[in-house]
């Protein structure tokens, strides 16, 4: 009985963590190449609305997920065109992308407000997950498994492969990489596209798995929290996993407290917790980092070629 509740809580936790994990993992790769794309929230919203629109019209959640990924890439390519192609300021352009994502998703989604779809179900047949503990292993949907596999894949890619080495080199010193003969802008564009793809997918997780219906600004600032998570993780995929699941725990606490009808805490105060927790975590990270060492890629956010 208690086991079933605990398992159920963990399932909620994993579901809350997954979209942020995806978006943050994409942003981590983008930032490792030296690009600071603050438009994660916007890309997530583009993915969320595209995924919902396609899933609603075709009845296929899988097609929705693919559409969301492509929408995320498309949004990221606007960013790449402006910052990498035309040399615009990365911070300003990232903000613009978020404003655009809010506007575009709200415009496209206007016709879908309140509509529902069948949500993304567990990957494995129900009898695998009949026992509560087995449910912990076999009860998740495909995206949860995919996100965990991607953490491993990105970690191996960055540490063990030549392509990963080159990607890190571009973020570490773009001028040196260029002098050796690497195509800095092409590599950065690819990294930005990957970030967009995962942000789009993460956004779609909201509209296709978490709340299988459309509402305006569905992602509620989770894209910004994903950005904070990359800082928290010190640009390391493994720590990102821990951070995302910690965040999932905070979000689950908020949900459980609301469901339990705690009257001594106003629901608005509970709704503040993820954001306040993010600020607290960022602050604690800074306190911890003061002992020395450098985590961020050295060229993060700097234009190439230099202005």
């Amino acid at each position, binding site marked *: 009985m208690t086991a079933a509740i605990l398992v159920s809580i963990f399932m909620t936790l994993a579901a809350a963590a997954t979209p942020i994990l995806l978006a943050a993992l994409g942003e981590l790769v983008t930032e490792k190449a030296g690009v600071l794309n603050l438009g994660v929230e916007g890309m997530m919203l583009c993915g969320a609305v595209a995924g919902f629109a396609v899933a609603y019209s075709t009845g296929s959640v899988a097609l929705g997920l693919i559409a969301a990924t492509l929408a995320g890439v498309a949004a990221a390519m606007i960013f790449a065109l402006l910052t990498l192609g035309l040399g615009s300021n990365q911070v300003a352009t990232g903000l*613009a992308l978020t404003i655009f994502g809010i506007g575009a998703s*709200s415009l496209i989604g206007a016709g879908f407000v309140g509509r529902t779809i069948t949500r993304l179900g567990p990957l494995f047949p129900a009898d695998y997950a009949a026992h509560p503990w087995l449910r912990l292993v076999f009860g998740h949907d495909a995206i949860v498994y995919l996100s965990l596999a991607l953490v491993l894949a990105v970690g191996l890619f960055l540490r063990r492969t030549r392509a990963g080495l080159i990607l890190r080199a571009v973020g570490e010193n773009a001028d040196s990489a260029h002098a050796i003969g690497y195509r800095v802008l092409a590599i950065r564009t690819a990294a930005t596209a990957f970030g967009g793809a995962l942000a789009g997918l993460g956004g779609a997780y909201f509209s296709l798995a978490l709340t299988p219906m459309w509402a305006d600004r569905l992602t509620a600032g989770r894209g910004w929290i994903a950005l904070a998570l990359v800082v928290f993780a010190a640009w390391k995929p493994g720590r990102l996993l821990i951070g995302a699941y910690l965040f999932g725990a905070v979000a689950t606490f908020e949900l459980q407290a609301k469901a339990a009808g705690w009257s001594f805490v106003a629901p608005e105060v509970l709704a503040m917790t993820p954001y306040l927790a993010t600020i607290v975590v960022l602050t604690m990270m800074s306190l911890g980092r003061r002992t020395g060492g450098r985590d961020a890629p050295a060229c993060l956010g700097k234009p190439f070629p230099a202005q």
Partner: protein
Amino acid sequence: MLEWRRRREPSKAMLYLSPLIAIGLTMLTGMLVFGAIGYDGLRAVTAIFITPLIEPQRWADLGVKAAPLIMIALGLAIGFRANVWNIGAEGQYVMGAIAGTGVALLTHDMTGWWILPAMALAGILGGAAYAAVPALLKVRLQVSEILTSLMLTYVAVQFLYYLVRGPWKDPDGFNFPQTKMFSGSQTLPAVAEGSLVHVGVPLAILLALIAWFVLSKTVAGYAVRVVGRAPAAARHGGFDANRVTWAVLLTGGGLAGLAGLLEAAGPFGQLTPQFPVGYGFTAIIVAFLGRLSPVGIVFGALVLAVTYVGGEIAQSTVRLPSAATGMFQALLLFFLLATDVLVRWRLAWKARPAKVAP
């Protein structure tokens, strides 16, 4: 073939022309996009960008919508100039309104000329205090102000919801989540009898002039510009980047807070959950459209005010969804950032390498 050539000095002409080009491109794209998805594109763009300018009865509304945008964008632009990216102006705007409303609720049974100034002061302090949090975290712990100021916006909005649904709910308000209406001495006077234009509008323009003077004529303004452009040079010249960070964040927060209070004591006359309308985010576009210069911001705010008023017109005439306004605003910012390239680069016909006669 055309090719890009780097200018030896940034083009002054393009500095002023590129926002106009961006507006033109936005109108063109908007026409094509909305045409493609089944609206009357030309009428939509006309309604949004032209109608508010040619119908005099809309002008008051333009001024009222531009005023908070000017104030917030001034504060943001000063920060952006110093490379301080406060993007949580919306939160500071809400907090300013809450602080000012606090004073209004305390003085609800009183009258006197001092009540509005006291509310304004509370608004400024509320916004500034809220911006002090990211300032402190940035200066002391190098925490990114981008993330903290934005996170605090979500917190401020929830705080507002809490107040209007809980302790500040009007007991005679039929259980609607809203505060009492402000009294006569708590409401902004109009500039002229019967006009919709309240005193916040001339105040916004006055603030823009002051900001222009400080930025371009004083050592304090110089400090802001040099810290943003070249931090090492600023240190070399004896400027303290931390002090500048504090100053611009407190100024930005104060201006946003004042804008929030003026909005509460003007068009709204109370606090409701609908109070945060996103001016704090739109002001980011205004700041860029105005090229981060105070005078430019007045015009930038006017353009964005036109899109707000025009968006409402287009809703009734062409049945354009209200979200279209946000799309137009975002497109405008994209094109602005894109056309910025013309300031430093120019397009030229590719010259074939001239053969030198032997």
